[in-house]
């Protein structure tokens, strides 16, 4: 025994819904497949599930298309947004700006709706001191000199390193 569709009264109802009216009353509805599709309750079998639309609605409230998101690529590290979604790791600090349109909703979901930093900020931002870069270069030269058995050169480099380390 099939329930007839509430709308067309002809077809057997296959979609059964219970919802609450704005007045707070419980309402049951039984529809056939065709009427349910007409009312937009079930998707149309002929490709009604538009992945683009779904993604767009999900990510940017209709402002950004899925194609735009798929095309996002960091100009600096060349990572694409799709690659990021696949492995979960960003490629460089610039990605936060390059992917911002798509990333902000992910960030908000991960952080209980927050997208603005609160807390510690760097006290002082300095470029690496020249001595630091020199030390890196000198240590590399030292290894190279020892490898090449240029011991006099190695001793000179060692002395320069010591001079920087103990000013």
């Amino acid at each position, binding site marked *: 025994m099939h329930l007839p569709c509430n709308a067309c009264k002809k077809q057997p109802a296959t979609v059964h819904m219970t919802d609450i009216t704005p007045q707070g009353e419980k309402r049951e509805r039984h529809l056939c497949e065709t009427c349910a599709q007409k009312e937009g309750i079930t998707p149309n079998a002929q490709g009604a599930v538009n992945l683009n639309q779904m993604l767009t609605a999900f990510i940017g409230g209709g402002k950004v298309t899925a194609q735009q998101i798929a095309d996002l690529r960091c100009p*600096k*590290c060349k*990572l694409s947004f799709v690659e990021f979604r696949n*492995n*979960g*790791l*960003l*490629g*460089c*600090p610039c990605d*936060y*700006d390059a992917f911002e349109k798509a*990333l902000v909703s*992910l*960030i908000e979901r*991960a*952080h*209980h*709706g*927050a*997208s*603005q*930093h*609160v*807390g*510690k*900020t*760097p*006290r*002082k*931002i*300095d*470029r*690496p*001191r020249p001595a*630091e870069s020199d*030390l*890196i270069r000198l*240590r590399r030269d030292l290894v190279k000199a020892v490898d090449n058995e240029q011991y006099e050169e190695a001793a000179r480099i060692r002395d320069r390193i010591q001079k920087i*380390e103990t000013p």
Partner: protein
Amino acid sequence: MITDKLAKNSGQWLATPGPMSEIVISSRIRLARNVSGYPFLSRASDDQRRELAERLRIHLDSRATKGQWEYLDLDQVDDLDRQMLVERHLISRQLVESKGTRGVAISVDETTSVMVNEEDHLRIQVLRTGMQLDDIWNQINGIDDRLEDNIEYAFHARYGYLTACPTNVGTGIRVSVMLHLPALKLTGEIERVFRAAKDMHLAVRGLYGEGTEATGDLFQISNQVTLGRGEQDIVNDFKALVIPRIIDYENLARQCLIKERPLGWMTVSFAPTAF
């Protein structure tokens, strides 16, 4: 090498009981930091990894910390020592399993470690026995400040400290407290703790963090939200709200167990078996 010294004693977080040690085994804070001007590690070349390690090593080995720290290049550490460092919670499994130049600076008292080239360029960690989150925060904040005097961190006005994974962005802080909760486990009430933790956006994990089993009824509770809340607020939540509540709950479960299962039931098992 520092590993020889470590091997002679048990880990500091286990060796001495700390505040609330009847339930709180250890507390830990870690900060994730990246150096400005370099890609994150998934896109870094071998040369960039090496350069980062060298630059960071200079600051970790600096005169101010001479004698208090030892830096280990992980490629120079054998498998057994690596395993010991993982067991002591001084390095992560991820650091062991990853490839390329990477290392760790360890303080001689074993409370502090700074991993270089793990998921982020720097993972600073302070671990202490018992419940000592305030002291840990002060200590780690100081270490971070000292590094920050010499290194320009990747920082964004909106998103804060930038990290390779957006789940750590902002403060980059992870506060974890390791708890021994046998009574909650035995009574099955631990499920309620899991649910409450989830509602508060906290993660409950096993002894060695992500993806590990809760062996020995040891559970690690940690924050998941790192953006939109200050470090001190996150620490205070643990100190004033989360941990005291779980401790009360565990104590209640222990008392219930004692009432419901008086010692008599144990003596039965020692009674001679009738043949």
